[in-house]
């Protein structure tokens, strides 16, 4: 079909011995990579494996320390994203590089030839987004758009430059399964046009499904290249992690106890124009149960977490009951004292203060709920440094937190390790009720399986756990029951075994639009 099939064809992009040093640390070490024209090439690796550093060099954001990039066989130096774009490389970043205060069209215009008028860009973006099945309103302000829509802007922006290679950095992590399917169709369309795609992911199933070839990175080095369709998820994971990933074990026959978390038709108005209002939310979680709440980002998960944790108390004390006590008006610490624990979504700035050491971060979270263990001197509240430090050590050991030094700054830990710490910080208390939001977002496979196992073990020990997550694999791994949140409405919860991926996907797409879906569900 394309010239790329022949072994003698010159690859579109070749990387030879590409190295990036940060001080003495080699983020990328002599990387070799070939991307043929018209292929979808996966770049697999855990967090910190060097994927992002590699693509940043390819896109001219970072300067390589050594090595060579060949474009159509000719050596090139890519000094800036502008040069990358002129070569024909488009990039869709993992953390969107969008400007919230600007409109969709203005955002796109910023990366295009300044001579093209804004109205022409609007028209082209509209028609292109239609052609590739990515609906967008060019005049909308980015601040008003959902994460999925923001990603579409990035893709359309990359496509408008008519690139021969498009780099996508973890594109499906924010999408529903159906949205991801649409994205894959777009990618196949691009491939059929002879364009190449460099697809960065750690989701093995989708790599196997859509990619022609895969290059696996670990610790900044290439660990192998393969045809992902010939591999199993387990064999790919082994290449990625370097050892077998511990499979999460669950005891299916766990007995459920009393209701520990209860919410009764709670409605909360949106606090800001960009927030989601919660509509008539009810839930019951029993001891030993793990209720997973699925949903696409920005459908009220954060707001639901806030009212559960007490970060934003609600007016009606009885609307939320923890362990049988009405807590609606109680703040976080009040709820913690009742034996609840909470892990918010944002690691940096919300769950942890990046510039403070782990021990301080531990104390900040637990100074009230574990006053007796960590503070002394009565009203003077003097910190017992030894107790805080030994607790920090205990948590790091229990959760296998890998860090440099005894008590490093939270910000110096990798995402996965910091996440293990902030989850461990709550688990250490053996809370009777635990609510976690996106426990393994952006976390590598090893750390994710560790965290999931810890959550399952906690439930087994008789705690009620609520896991709010976008990751459906995770949900099926840990949940005993599943509910779906969409536009601030929570579906009733179903036993995990009764739901399929497709059903959840449909519910995520908007239960409220067609009532037939939840209606048929009642028939079970």
């Amino acid at each position, binding site marked *: 079909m394309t010239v790329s099939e022949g072994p003698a064809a010159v690859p579109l992009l070749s990387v030879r011995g590409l190295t990036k040093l940060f001080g003495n640390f080699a983020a990328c070490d002599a990387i070799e990579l070939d991307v043929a024209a018209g292929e979808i090439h996966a770049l697999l690796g855990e967090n910190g494996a060097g994927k992002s550093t590699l693509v940043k060099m390819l896109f001219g*954001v*970072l300067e390589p320390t050594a090595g060579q990039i060949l474009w159509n066989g000719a050596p090139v130096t890519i000094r800036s994203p502008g040069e990358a774009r002129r070569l024909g490389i488009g990039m869709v970043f993992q953390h969107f590089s969008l*400007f919230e*205060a600007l409109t969709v069209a203005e955002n796109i215009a910023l*990366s295009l030839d300044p001579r093209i008028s804004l109205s022409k860009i609007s028209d082209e973006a509209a028609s292109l987004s239609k052609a590739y099945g990515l609906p967008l309103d060019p005049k909308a302000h980015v*601040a008003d758009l959902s994460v999925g829509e923001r990603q579409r802007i990035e893709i359309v922006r990359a496509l408008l430059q008519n690139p021969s290679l498009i780099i996508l950095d973890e594109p499906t992590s924010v999408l529903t399964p159906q949205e991801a399917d649409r994205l894959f169709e777009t990618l196949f369309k691009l491939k059929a046009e002879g364009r190449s795609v460099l697809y960065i992911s750690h989701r093995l199933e989708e790599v196997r499904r859509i990619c022609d070839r895969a290059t696996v990175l670990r610790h900044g080095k290439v660990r192998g290249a393969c045809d992902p369709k010939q591999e199993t998820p387990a064999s790919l994971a082994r290449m990625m992690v370097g050892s077998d990933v511990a499979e999460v074990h669950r005891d299916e026959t766990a007995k459920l106890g009393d209701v520990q978390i209860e919410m009764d038709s709670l409605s909360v108005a949106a606090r800001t124009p960009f927030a989601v209002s919660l509509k008539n939310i009810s839930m019951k979680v029993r001891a030993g149960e793990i209720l997973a709440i699925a949903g696409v980002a920005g459908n009220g998960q954060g707001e639901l977490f806030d009212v559960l944790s007490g970060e934003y108390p609600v007016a009606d004390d009885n609307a939320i009951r923890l362990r049988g006590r009405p807590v609606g008006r109680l703040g976080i610490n009040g709820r913690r004292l009742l034996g609840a624990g909470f892990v918010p979504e944002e690691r940096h700035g919300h769950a942890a203060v990046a510039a403070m050491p782990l021990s301080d971060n531990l104390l900040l979270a637990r100074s009230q709920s574990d006053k007796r263990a960590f503070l002394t001197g009565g009203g003077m509240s003097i910190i017992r440094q030894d107790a805080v430090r030994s607790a920090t050590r205990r948590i790091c050991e229990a959760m296998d937190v890998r860090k440099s030094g005894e008590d490093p700054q939270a910000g110096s830990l990798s995402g996965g390790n910091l996440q293990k710490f902030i989850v461990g910080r709550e688990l250490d208390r053996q809370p009777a009720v635990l609510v976690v939001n996106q426990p393994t977002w952006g976390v590598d496979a090893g750390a994710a399986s560790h965290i999931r196992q810890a959550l399952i073990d906690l439930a087994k020990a008789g705690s009620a756990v609520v896991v709010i997550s976008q990751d459906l694999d995770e949900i099926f791994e840990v949940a005993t029951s599943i509910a779906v949140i969409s536009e601030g409405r929570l579906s009733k919860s179903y036993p995990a075994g009764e739901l399929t991926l497709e059903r959840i996907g449909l519910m995520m797409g908007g239960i409220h639009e067609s009532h037939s879906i939840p209606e048929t569900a009642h028939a079970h």
Partner: protein
Amino acid sequence: MFEAILLTVITASTPLVVAALGELVAERSGVLNLGVEGMMIMGAVFAFAATRYTGSPYIGILAGIAGGALFSLLFGFLTLTLVANQVATGLALTILGLGLSGQIGESFVGQPGIKLQPISIPLLSEIPFFGKVLFNQDLIFYLSVALIVGIHWFLFRSRTGLKLRAIGDNHGSAHALGIHVVRMRYLAVMFGGACAGLAGAQLSLVYTPQWVENMSAGRGWIALALVVFASWRPRRVLAGGYLFGAVTIGQLHAQAFGIGVPTQLLSALPYAATIVVLIIISHNRRTTLINTPASLGKPFVPDR
């Protein structure tokens, strides 16, 4: 009588509008330069000196612009190249400017200055009332009007203006897109300095054509407040500038008429108005989010 008051209001408002417009551009690029007062007074002393030595207030205007821009370059070097704290550097710039201008202008104190003469625009200036008020003005007034139109067009119609707003919103992403963040910020800061210098020239060539130490008298701070008051929209600077100017003049006339309002209260009015506006705009989170430069005052270090 009314005409005369209006003329004084225009004269009092023009430096506020000009300086605020310059600061608005700098802040739209994400740089908070609290040194407006210092740059303005430097512009005033440069303009006065150049006019005295050459006899031409037009060369004085150019010198004022150059003085403000040069002085802002110091701020740019400290905050953009050396990534010093913008608030502290801006405050230092004001204090330095007030002291340095006093030193430079020591020999000018009490010396007569040359007033910048109005330019009457043919035909238009013959319109009754409006002609006299609007079309028989000095060059700096005309420039202030042109600046509003020009800056509005630049920010919201031109591609470079779009880049400037992008940098102010998210300098990390702008850098990733290949926009030269530091270079554009240097230019924006220097534009702000040039405008502050022009405003200073207006003080020492039009408002009171002489050199008096500390003659900027807090106008730089009013200009800073005006930018927030205008919620970073250039056309609102015009409205706000004239409101603040009218309050200043109104306070003088109120004194003359012996109206029993304490003058201190009246001179505090512009700041009180700014606080009220801040409260109002903070209620509308959406407009705030869209107009306020999100990376305002944040240091930028490229990760290359």
